């Protein structure tokens, strides 16, 4: 009984922990999406480039 209880708590803890970490990472990703996808963010870009269609 005692072991069962321990396992149940552990499973519950693992579940909550995984949910928490997933929530945290997802939120962080969406909030800082710009920086994750592009390590050179727009706000420090100084140049408006003249490009051809093939460059994009």
């Amino acid at each position, binding site marked *: 009984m005692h072991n069962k209880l321990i396992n149940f708590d552990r499973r519950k803890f693992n579940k909550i922990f995984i949910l928490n970490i997933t929530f945290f990472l997802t939120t962080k990703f969406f909030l800082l999406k710009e920086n994750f996808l*592009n390590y*050179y963010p727009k706000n420090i*870009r*100084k*140049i*408006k*480039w*003249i*490009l*051809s269609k*093939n*460059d*994009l």
Partner: protein
Amino acid sequence: MILKDDEILKKKFQIVICGSGPAGISIALELEKKKIECLIIEAGDEFYSEKAQSRYKGEVYGNFPEDLSVLRLSQFGGTSGHWGGTCRTLDNYDFQNWPIKKSEIDPFLDSSCEILNIPKSFREKNINNNLKIIEFQESKVRFYEKYYEHIKRSKFINLALNCIFFNIKMSGNKVTELFLKSTKDISIKTNFLVLACGGIENSRLLLWFRENNKEISKDLPIGNYWMEHPFKKIGSGVGNFKAIRKNFENNFESFKNFRNWGNFTVSISPTQNLISQKNILNSAVFLTLHDRNNDNFKNNIKDLLCVAPSLSNHILDLFNKDLLCGITLSSSWEQNPQLENRITLSSSKDFSGIPLTKLNYQLSDLSLQTANEMVNQIGNYFIDKDLGRLGAYKTIENLSSFVSEAGYHHIGGTIMGKSKKSSVVDKNLKLHNIENLYICGSSVFPTGGHANPTLSIVQLSLRLGEHLIKRLKTI
């Protein structure tokens, strides 16, 4: 020869020139050829002095980038004592709003190049319908070094140093007497007076003379339509070092190493077609190539790859072959004449009692449109020829965030024209309605073009010298 106060009083001069800069000296040299005696009045000394320079202080309103007292020199030789020496003739289409055509000052180009010790070579070549590459020359002449000893020994050119031209006396429509302040107050008489004191001083003195002489019309727009040449780094990029050099190698480089900015520079200007089609101003863009040590180079690559990922293989390939270089676009361009940009008199006065300069100055949207259009045109040329990729700095997008550097070229204020309401001097540089008062220098330019003005100033001065010789014969 150099005259002292008493010697000035003993002589009578048919022509008095105020100012010993390139304009004043060029007029005197032209008169000397015909053995006509003149007097040059210089408010400064043989060399720089803080006292003389203090007369150049002034108030500035707007976004003019420099202190007025550091832009010019009050000494023999004027601002040629610290000028950059870059020379080029104005373009034909710069004369659209002038009362004269370029062909009227062209005959004086040979003599002007001799004065400035430069070859008479100002080639240009179209690289497409909209752009052309142009050639500049670089003069190393300091007027003090070249002409001080010459004037000291001359029988026909007289020079009065430390002599402030304080006022004039008029009778009817003629200047009859000049009041000078040196070690003592002097008054002299002359047949012709020429103001050649520089792009700011000409307006200041003329405004002051008008305050003291009702004969000078209040309708004349003295001080109005003042202009500069905005100067700024306007763009940047990366490109194929060898391809760019090869593309321009059959043409001419304007400077081998322009101001030490890079190891290759080519100067690009809009054609008349582009100016009229896009309704922009004249401009010169200096395209300079840099090696990999330049700070902009790495940032430019990062920046470009973020917006153009498809170029990454090409860029990497060039980088690995050691062919990729950084590019900087700097520009000096024309400013459109605006009534709001004007010189007036300040309430403060200099030590001689003449009011100091008050300058109102704003750049226009058209100036920034010109800079953006030029980067756009050169950028597209680079795409067509596969030379690299260029972009405009975001600082030239909005007038509010744009701060120009000073071009040190002071244009307008006493502009020439046919109408007495919209111009100050006529095509012979004579003040409207006044018989014997002439103005010379870049202050008479109705529009500035992009070319550095000194060569055109010397051409106009020699033309004025010739005109004065003709007028002297009629007396």
